[in-house]
């Protein structure tokens, strides 16, 4: 009888001779399929400074597309850690937009609303015989999860926001969901999460991260920009905080923990560009036939960045600042018929620090006059 070793040597010889006769070619296991590449490019065009998050989501999506994700559990369990304003929820929104064309195409559970054990009934419904049974529609149902499914894509996105605030009862549910991909509702109906990509976000370690960003207490210079070593410290701080707070059972069920980087000045500039491009798109869409455009001087861009961002809160306020100082003003110009089709509005900074809006040229009227 041949030993296992002899069998293995024989198989290896057979493989070598097959390679010699057929011609061997090396394979690249890092390549992505076309759909995944498009998905990844979509994310890269809209998400700034968070490459690790993009890589993690892309990997899960690729596994899902080729049906290689482990059966009988969710497609992926991702934990996003990081400072506020670094874009954790935004990544989920962009993933939803990439897959379903709508940023709201995911089910969001705000764990802060389930801090008491009895509040779990809002999530899964009350069991028969308990007060409220049949009266309140559970939040996490198969219908709610599958709401955005299409003929081509039967994938659901579930966001569990601020996971550290969940009650012990929610934790028990979560462990089951993350492990088996099954949730039993109060009505005994089962919800299948095996076609679901689960995102969990947490601000754990936020205070320590804030301390790192601000330079800590005492006579320490506050960092004006963010360097790589700061990101490493933030990663370490967030991961340690997660390990302190979350049980090993929970951590073992995660496929990937991603710590979001603090946005550097060059990232914030890219975020500003993206946000201004979105506003231009909105104006074009809203103005329809009578569309116009605008451009901001470099000084205005710097001013918007100063007003809308800071190392502690990232780009959280940037959208609001653009809305308040640019969009409202443009709407007032439209309301008073000061802009018309083809106009380009130049936005510059006046010496007193306020914004000046100047009509550069009305393309249509110049053409008409010519």
């Amino acid at each position, binding site marked *: 009888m041949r030993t296992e070793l002899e069998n293995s040597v024989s198989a290896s010889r057979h493989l070598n001779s097959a390679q010699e006769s057929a011609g061997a070619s090396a394979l690249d296991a890092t390549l992505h399929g076309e759909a995944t590449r498009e998905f990844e490019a979509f994310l890269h065009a809209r998400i700034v400074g968070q490459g690790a998050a993009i890589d993690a989501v892309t990997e899960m999506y690729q596994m899902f597309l080729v049906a290689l994700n482990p059966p009988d559990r969710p497609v992926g369990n991702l934990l996003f850690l990081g400072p506020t304003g670094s874009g954790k929820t935004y990544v989920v929104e962009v993933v939803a937009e990439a897959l379903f064309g709508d940023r709201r195409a995911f089910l969001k559970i705000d764990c802060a609303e389930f801090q008491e054990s009895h509040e779990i009934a809002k999530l899964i419904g009350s069991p028969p015989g308990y007060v409220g049974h049949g009266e309140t529609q559970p939040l996490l149902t198969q219908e709610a999860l599958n709401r955005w499914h299409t003929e081509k894509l039967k994938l659901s996105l579930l966001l569990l926001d601020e996971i550290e605030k969940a009650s012990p009862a929610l934790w028990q549910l979560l462990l089951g969901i993350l492990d088996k991909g099954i949730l039993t509702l109060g009505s005994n109906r089962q919800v299948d999460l095996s076609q679901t990509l689960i995102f969990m976000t947490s601000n754990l370690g936020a205070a320590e991260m804030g301390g790192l960003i601000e330079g800590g207490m005492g006579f320490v210079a506050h960092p004006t920009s963010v360097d790589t070593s700061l990101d490493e410290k933030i990663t370490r701080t967030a991961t340690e905080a997660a390990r302190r707070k979350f049980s090993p059972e929970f951590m073992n069920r995660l496929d990937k923990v991603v710590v979001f980087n603090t946005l550097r000045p060059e990232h914030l500039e890219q975020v500003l560009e993206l946000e201004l491009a979105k506003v231009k798109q909105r104006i074009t869409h*809203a*103005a*329809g036939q009578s569309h116009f455009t605008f451009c901001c001087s470099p000084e205005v861009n710097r001013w918007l960045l100063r007003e809308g961002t800071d190392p502690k809160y990232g780009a959280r306020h940037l959208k609001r600042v653009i809305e308040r100082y640019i*969009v*409202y*003003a443009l*709407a007032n110009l*439209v*309301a008073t018929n000061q802009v018309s089709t083809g106009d380009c509005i130049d936005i510059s900074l006046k010496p007193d620090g306020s914004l000046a809006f100047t009509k550069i040229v009305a393309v249509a009227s110049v053409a008409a006059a010519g």
Partner: protein
Amino acid sequence: MKAVLFVDDNEALCRLTCDILRLEGYRAVPAYNAAEALKVFDEEDFDIVVTDMRMDGMDGLELARQIHNKNPQLPVILVTAYEPVSGEHVRECLAKEDLFPHLLEKIRLCLSEAEVRKAS
């Protein structure tokens, strides 16, 4: 989610304003003239109406009067590029040159007053 009906024959302004209102968390519905506004008003529920004063066909004051025939408690804000207008059917009047951010403040104020009235 509170619902706002915004009426203006300047379509660009109408859409842009509704866009801003949606970002502020309202359900905003545009109507490009008074007749269309009355039709939409009959089909959907609104918490407040904001209308331009001068429009072809029916002006904002007449629209406010007809809306109050259907729902006397509904706040109506009038916006105008001309002289301020007042009347029993107008809760607030806003100059178009000061539309933003004042419109958002006025809407918030009118809606919270309406809530208080409803509660009492």
